[in-house]
C-alpha cells in the first residue's frame, strides 16, 4: 500500500505597499524551489492568482500599509494564517514609502500629479475604484500582530531559504548576522 501523502504546508503571499522585490528574492532561491514545492502549496499569491486567502499555515507579507485596501488584505491574512511573517524592510519598518510620513499627503499628491514639471493638465486621480491612501505609511506590526520579521531590502534568497527551512522543520527561525541585513 503506498504511504499516505503527507499533507502539504499551505502558504499565502502578497505584496502590499512593496515593489515585489521580496517576491523576486523568493524566486531567487532557484532550484531550491523544487524542494520547497514538495513540502508546500500556495494559496493566495501573485504566483497563483488566487484572489482571496483561505486558511493557511504561513502568510508571507511584503510591503507596508499605505492605503485602505492594504489594511483589508493584511487583516484577511491575519485572520487566515496561523503564522504571519513581515517580509522585507517595507513590511518591517514602512520602508522607503514611509519617507513620505513627515510630509502632508495633500502636498505629496499635489506635487506628484499636478505640480510635477513633466505634467500638463495634471489632476489628482479620483476614480472610485482606487483605494484611499492613508495619511501615513505604517509597518505591519502597527496594524496586526506579526509573528516573525525578516528585514532586508529585499532579504536575500539565502535569508528567505534559511527562514523557511527552519520554520518547515519545526525550528524557531534564527538568522545569523550575515543574513540579517537592513538594506
Amino acid at each position, binding site marked *: 500500500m503506498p504511504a499516505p501523502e503527507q499533507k502539504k504546508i499551505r502558504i499565502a503571499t502578497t505584496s502590499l505597499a512593496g515593489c515585489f522585490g521580496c517576491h523576486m528574492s523568493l524566486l531567487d532561491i532557484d532550484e531550491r524551489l523544487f524542494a520547497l514545492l514538495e513540502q508546500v502549496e500556495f494559496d493566495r499569491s501573485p504566483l497563483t492568482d488566487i484572489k482571496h486567502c483561505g486558511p493557511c499555515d504561513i502568510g508571507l507579507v511584503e510591503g507596508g500599509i499605505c492605503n485602505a485596501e492594504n489594511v483589508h488584505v493584511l487583516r484577511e491574512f491575519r485572520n487566515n494564517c496561523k503564522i504571519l511573517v513581515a517580509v522585507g524592510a517595507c513590511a518591517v*519598518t514602512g520602508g*522607503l514609502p514611509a519617507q513620505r510620513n*513627515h510630509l502632508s499627503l495633500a502636498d505629496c499628491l499635489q506635487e506628484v500629479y499636478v505640480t510635477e514639471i513633466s505634467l500638463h493638465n495634471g489632476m489628482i486621480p479620483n476614480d472610485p475604484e482606487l483605494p484611499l491612501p492613508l495619511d*501615513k505609511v505604517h509597518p505591519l506590526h*502597527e496594524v496586526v500582530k506579526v509573528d516573525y520579521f*525578516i528585514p532586508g531590502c529585499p532579504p536575500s534568497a539565502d535569508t528567505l531559504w534559511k527562514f523557511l527551512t527552519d520554520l518547515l522543520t519545526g525550528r524557531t527561525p534564527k*538568522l545569523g548576522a*550575515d543574513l*540579517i541585513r537592513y*538594506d
Partner: protein
Amino acid sequence: MSESFQLDGEDIPYTPGQTVLQAALSAGRYIPHLCYHPEFKPHGSCKVCTVKIASGKSQRTAASCTLPAQPGLEIESDSDEMNELRRTLVQMLFAEGNHFCPSCEKSGNCALQALGSDLGVMTAGFRHFYPDRPVDASHPDILLDFNRCILCELCVRASCEVDEKCVFALSGRGITKHLVVNAASGQLADTDIALIDKAMQVCPVGVILTKRVGFAEPIGERRYDQRPISAQALDDAPRAATGKGRCTSCEE
C-alpha cells in the same frame, strides 16, 4: 603581576586608569558598544555597553565604557539578559530617527546597523516616530542628514577637541535633544568646517557625509559586509588619543 577582573568568568588584565570596556577590548574581548571611540574620552550616552556587576550579594548595572576597571569585579556581559537589553536600546534608536537603510549612503559602513544585525535585531519593535528633520545641504562639499543622528556627541568632541572649531553642539533636553550647527544662520555653509577635519571622520552613522562620493563602494565590499562588528572589535581597542578631553577654544 598585572591586576585583573572577571568578564563572563574569564580573567581580564588591565592597566590602572582603563575602563572595563577599554580593558576588555585590549584583551581582545568584545562588549557591544556604540558611542565609545578609541581616541576620545568615553562619554557614556548610548548605554549599549551596559554590563551587570556582581559584588557580594548585590547586583547592579553600569555602562562599561565609563566604569573604571577594579580588581575583583565580576562582570556579566554576554548573557541573554544583557543582550536583550541592548537589542531594546538599538530598537529605540531605530524608532526614534528616520533610518531608511536602503537609501542611506552609510549603509554597510554604519555602526548602528552593524550592531543591530550582530545583536539579532529583526524589527524596530516600537512605533516609529518618523520625525521631521530637514537636511542641511548648504555646504558645497558636505551634507548633514539629521534624520540619522543618534546624539553620540562624537562630532561635537572631534570638532572641539581636535579641530578646535566647535562646529557642532547638542541642544535641547530629553526627546527634544538635537544636533545643531554653531553659526548665526544655523547653516553648515557658514562655518569653517573642512573635509579634512576629524569631525568628518567620526560619525558612526550617516549624518555627516561628503557629497558626490556616496555608494561608490559596491555592496559586498563595505566594512561590515566583510565581518560582523563584533569580529572587528580590536579596531576599537584604546590607541593614542586625538581628543584632549576638553576644548581649548570654548573651554567646555
